């Protein structure tokens, strides 16, 4: 047996597999209009509703409401893709028992997860580009080149902990409850983190818990990139929080994944 199999390649090369899997995951998401339009267009739509009318108003010494709200929606948009893109699509795939067939193929689970993460990052990036073009062209928001780059980079980096959260929700929620559960968690925390209304308009109890929310920490980082000074604390403190959330959410995701696998495949 050893002699017979030695002449033959035993496992498929990983890179082409990852490339095809990532592309497949991307078009799977992209071809569902309910998902792709909401995740790509929604941040721009919110910007149109809330940001356009007062884009030129001053928010502080060197930031306009347009700039501030562009940063808010950039973060909202990328995290939205991760939480909803993963949470709901993963829960649906489990509901349709797609994992059953995948489990019996030689696809390494890690390739599957990386592909899912890459495809969601790509959709998040699209949402970011659409929002930026819209804010600049229609809202007349101006940023320096380095501010654009910093905003883009920080938004994408801040989406990473939400990949973990999305995975965790995808394995914890049932297909039917996933949309409700994810929205129930995501929307209120987006409000409580000051993404839609400036923090000082929120009730005191929300302002007290806000600093412990990942979106709040991410918001400080993206606002800082467009010139709004950090509200209490420092940039490095926010990065540390984000790193902590990343670890915590990925550990949660791993636990949820193992729990699901244990249930199904033992």
């Amino acid at each position, binding site marked *: 047996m050893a002699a017979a*199999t030695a002449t033959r390649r*035993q*496992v498929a090369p990983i890179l*082409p597999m990852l490339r095809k899997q990532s592309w497949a995951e991307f078009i799977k998401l992209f*071809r569902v209009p309910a998902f792709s339009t909401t995740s790509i267009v929604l941040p721009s739509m919110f910007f149109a509703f809330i940001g356009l009318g007062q884009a030129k108003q001053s928010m502080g010494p060197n930031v306009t409401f347009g700039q501030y709200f562009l940063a808010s929606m950039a973060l909202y948009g990328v995290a939205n893709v991760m939480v909803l893109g993963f949470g709901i699509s993963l829960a649906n795939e489990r509901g349709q028992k797609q994992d*059953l*067939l995948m489990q019996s193929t*030689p696809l390494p689970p890690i390739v599957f997860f990386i592909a899912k993460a890459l495809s969601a990052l790509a959709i998040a990036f699209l949402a970011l580009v659409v929002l930026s073009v819209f804010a600049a062209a229609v809202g007349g928001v101006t940023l320096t080149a380095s501010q654009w780059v910093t905003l883009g980079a920080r938004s994408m980096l801040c989406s990473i902990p939400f990949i973990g959260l999305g995975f965790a929700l995808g394995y914890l929620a049932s297909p039917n409850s996933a949309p409700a559960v994810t929205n129930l968690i995501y929307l209120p925390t987006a409000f409580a983190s000051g993404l839609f209304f400036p923090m000082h308009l929120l009730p005191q109890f929300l302002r007290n818990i806000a600093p412990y929310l990942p979106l709040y920490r991410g918001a400080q980082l993206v606002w800082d990139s467009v010139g709004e000074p950090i509200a209490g604390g420092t940039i490095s403190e926010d990065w540390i929080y984000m790193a902590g959330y990343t670890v915590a959410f990925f550990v949660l995701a791993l636990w949820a994944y193992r729990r699901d696998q244990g249930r199904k*495949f033992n």
Partner: protein
Amino acid sequence: MVELEDVTKTFGPVRALDGVSLRIETGEVVAMLGPNGAGKTTSISIMLGTRKPTAGHARLFGLDPRDLKARGRIGVMLQESGVPGMLRVNEIIDLFASYYPSPLQVAESIKVAGLQEKATSLVKDLSGGQRQRLYLALAICGNPDVLFLDEPTVGMDVDGRRNFLAEIGEFAAKGRTVVLTTHYLEEADQLARRVIVIDHGKVIADSTPAEIKARVAGKHVVFSTTRPLTDADLEGLPLTGHQLNSHAVRLLTNDPETVLRELFRRGIELTNLEVAGADLEEAFVAMTHSEARA
């Protein structure tokens, strides 16, 4: 190739498999036959490594079935597994082919499964039968040495089933190994050279289709009697099973003519006589009982 060694699998209090040992060699076409809930799917899952045995061992090509090297040499069709609806047929076959070390060309998989006309359709737009053929394409696209098919023809119409079985036959003719589960005896008979009958988590027969058929292709004879019968009244009859319930009698036999002639000769008066082909479930019950007695 495929080996189960004294495998037991329990789900809570349910004993799905109870000390199953079997070996399947290269080039064999094996049908695992049994009623619903007999343990067929569990056996396949353990062979594939998608479930862990509670006790005992499973080997695939001498490896742990979960080893990706083993997985790279098998193709699988599972009951009720889903596939992404938003991919096109050719896209998903191309994707699955990339998982395997020496896959078939996508066009060839499509042709074998007879999906040429649907190659660029979205998976969600396929009919039930077409979807089943897609599963076949996904199972063979890795050019596997062993094909596992769990109830592959469920939901197919007569033509679909015939074509499907012909394709599997062609695949097997190339010297590949095929393991399929079914609860249709005809299907097992048509395709397999070896039939393993499973019931209540145990292997109750393992032989050629012809032998199995001789044992299960019985008739049942149902009637009422004017006086209650006892076992003694049935002594020496060619029966494979019987149920006596005061005046109601239910017999299972391969030779109903002889049984009836003998009953009349013994002066037993019958009413409401009914003779019909035994269904497989009943035949299994008879087989299990006869095994237990033997």
